[in-house]
């Protein structure tokens, strides 16, 4: 008799969904979280007004140098003095990169993981994203198509709460939306001018995981509508944005089937060569260093794409000398993120006597048009832009003027600033890897991760073109003082859209997982974080992780009910 029906490794974006769906199917579930417990009433700092923050909420430079030397430069917009407890200390969680490469591994180790600090833009993948690898002969074919995941997008959207407009775009399918955040007047004008100049392009509302018309189910979980505070990176007392802690974990808990253990760092997954099944998980307590074993009937890896691959690589046995479920040698390969660097900003006139009220999440989104509605591109795939058009105000003091006029510029008549930034698809490449360091270990005895990731020509060319396109659109919109950036690609990992490290595919010889996120080699092992992604598309991926997780959890529950695994 196993300790639990199911063990879920990780309580973040996808782990919360595994826990919820499996618990709701009546399974006894244990969630293993490597970090400490976050208690919203104690640890959210979203209610702190600006004047109670110290030093403009900046972490001291010496402290950054000692503890946040990767996290802060990577996510400086979100890593603050008041919420630094949501980010790992780099000196406590080191990793290595291959000579001549860089990697931003930006993390939070605690209840709900990075679902607390994410930026909440939420898009479906489109039919083209599941077909591209096969059409273009890149990597391996996705084993499923859009139609397979479509109902699961519906399923997770209804529960999570997604605010957005139904735009009717085939490449960015509509979903179960709550009312979106209306475009500003300048954004509406930008939209009409860009769409007139470029008939294949659309400017739409960003779709965000925020409640705007709370449902009965969401209310039961203590959630309420977004209050337009823009305090999301500090937690949300209103539980208005989706996170595991605001939504899925409480839903799992109320079933009575849910147990979570914190400070439980996985050392290995135990594999039984006779039954050819995982029997359980060996963990070490982060605080006491005590080791424990938990047995289970089915295991869901949701540790994050990188950490899940590392756990598989750490779990060696006679049957799997190169890591569990790794007969294909694809575990830890094909690492993908999204690539940014291109973008532009400028001023738009005509709205001097208008302003905005409230601080919405998200702004505008320009869905991918490259190789969808426009086919003249010197690169494959494409990118989307995130952006906004809002009053310039005093621009943090970076406008001309002194005295009364300058002091009151924050709310005075003036120009608006348009800004857009590209997020591009990264092609899968088997030589983009995460591996175990041969000798260096962390303080708990686990091998350090070694990243060896770079961008290819397609990503480089795409970003340069995205930069040109961004300037062209701002020009077409009549913007002035357009400043475009020299395109410097973001470091791999920097967009925190980690994926691909245990891809799904049709052939066990070339992929780790089947179309249900189930390991080809080990039937009671499911990996449903970003690791399963066969290609990256260019949309922010969290919604896909949620949908694939829910689908896999129900499939696993069916198999367990049939005693098939």
């Amino acid at each position: 008799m196993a300790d639990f029906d199911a063990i879920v490794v990780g309580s973040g974006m996808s782990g919360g969904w595994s826990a919820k769906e499996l618990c709701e199917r009546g399974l006894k579930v244990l969630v293993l979280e490597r970090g400490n417990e976050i208690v919203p009433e104690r640890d959210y700092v979203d209610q702190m007004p600006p004047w109670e923050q110290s030093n403009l909420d900046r972490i001291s430079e010496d402290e950054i140098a000692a503890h946040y030397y990767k996290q802060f430069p990577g996510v400086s917009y979100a890593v603050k003095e008041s919420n630094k407890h949501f980010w790992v200390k780099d000196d406590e969680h080191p990793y290595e990169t291959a000579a001549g490469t860089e990697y931003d591994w930006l993390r939070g180790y605690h209840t709900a993981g990075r679902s607390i600090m994410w930026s909440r833009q939420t898009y479906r993948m489109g039919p083209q994203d599941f077909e591209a690898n096969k059409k273009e002969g890149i990597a391996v074919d996705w084993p499923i198509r859009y139609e397979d995941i479509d109902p699961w997008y519906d399923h997770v959207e209804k529960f999570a709460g997604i605010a957005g407009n139904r735009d009717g775009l085939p490449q960015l399918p509509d979903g179960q939306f709550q009312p979106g955040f209306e475009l500003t007047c300048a954004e509406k004008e930008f939209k009409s001018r860009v769409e007139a100049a470029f008939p294949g392009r659309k400017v739409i509302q960003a779709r965000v995981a925020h409640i705007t018309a709370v449902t009965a189910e969401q209310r039961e979980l203590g959630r309420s509508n977004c209050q337009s505070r823009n305090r999301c990176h500090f937690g949300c007392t209103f539980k208005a944005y989706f996170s595991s802690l605001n939504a899925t974990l409480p839903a799992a808990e109320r079933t009575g089937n849910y147990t979570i253990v914190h400070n439980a760092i996985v050392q290995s997954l135990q594999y039984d060569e006779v039954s050819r099944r995982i029997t359980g998980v060996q963990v070490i307590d982060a605080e006491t260093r005590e080791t424990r074993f938990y047995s289970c009937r089915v295991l869901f890896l949701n540790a994050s794409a990188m950490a899940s691959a590392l756990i598989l690589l750490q779990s060696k046995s006679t049957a799997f000398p190169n890591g569990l479920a790794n007969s294909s040698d694809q575990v830890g390969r094909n690492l993908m993120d999204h690539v940014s660097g291109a973008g532009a900003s400028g001023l738009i006139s005509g709205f001097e006597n208008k302003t905005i009220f409230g601080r919405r999440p998200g702004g505008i989104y320009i869905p991918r048009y490259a190789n969808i509605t426009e086919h003249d591109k010197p690169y494959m795939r494409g990118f989307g832009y995130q952006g906004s058009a809002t009053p310039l105000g005093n621009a943090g003091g970076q406008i001309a003027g002194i005295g009364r006029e300058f002091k009151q510029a924050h709310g005075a008549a003036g120009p608006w600033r348009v800004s857009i930034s590209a997020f591009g698809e990264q092609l899968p490449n088997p030589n983009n890897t995460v591996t175990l360091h041969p000798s260096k270990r962390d303080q708990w005895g686990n091998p350090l991760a070694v990243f060896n990731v770079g961008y290819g020509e397609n990503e480089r060319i795409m970003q340069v073109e995205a930069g040109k396109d961004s300037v062209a659109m701002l020009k077409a919109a009549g913007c002035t003082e357009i400043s475009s950036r020299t395109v410097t690609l973001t470091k791999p990992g920097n967009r925190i859209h980690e994926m691909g490290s245990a891809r799904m595919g049709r052939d066990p010889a070339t992929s780790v997982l089947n179309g249900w996120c189930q390991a080809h080699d080990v039937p009671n092992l499911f990996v449903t974080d970003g690791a399963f992604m066969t290609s990256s598309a260019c949309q922010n991926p969290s919604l896909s992780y949620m949908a694939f997780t829910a689908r896999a959890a129900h499939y696993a529950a069916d198999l367990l009910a049939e005693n098939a695994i």
Partner: protein
Amino acid sequence: MKTRREVLQGLIVSIGGASMLAACDNAARVAVSNSQSLRFFSDQELALVSRISDLLLPRTDTPGALDVNVPGFIDGLMAEWANTRSQESQHRQLTELGHMLGADFVTAADAESTLRELDRAAFSGGTGYGGYRALKGLITQSYFATEEGALLEQHWVAVPGRWDPCVDI
């Protein structure tokens, strides 16, 4: 609240300038935190930052930068937040800025026009104004991070409760 005249006198006395006090007899422009508790600025730097803060964000129908002790806030921030290199850089930039503005800027009757001219140059593509632009940013952000600046001047609302994308000013 002390009158500006009172805090001005406190500052001038603290930097030892009885003659300066006479020089700006009718220029009640400078206020400052208790300079005895300075952690980062020298008295001269504090006088400079205070003068600039007051000219940038004067008292209107809402408190000015000096009323909410922006110079003292920045003094603490530079002591606690900045590392040694940033501190040295800030000292250097203030020295350079002092030279650009002139030796008698702190007490000069035409300080406002002097700063206005420098500001115009700094925001019309001029080079060499990085120190000034950074200080202006710091003063502005510090002011709006105070309770008075946020609530009285910026009308910051903790819980807007709604999003209105287009409002008449």
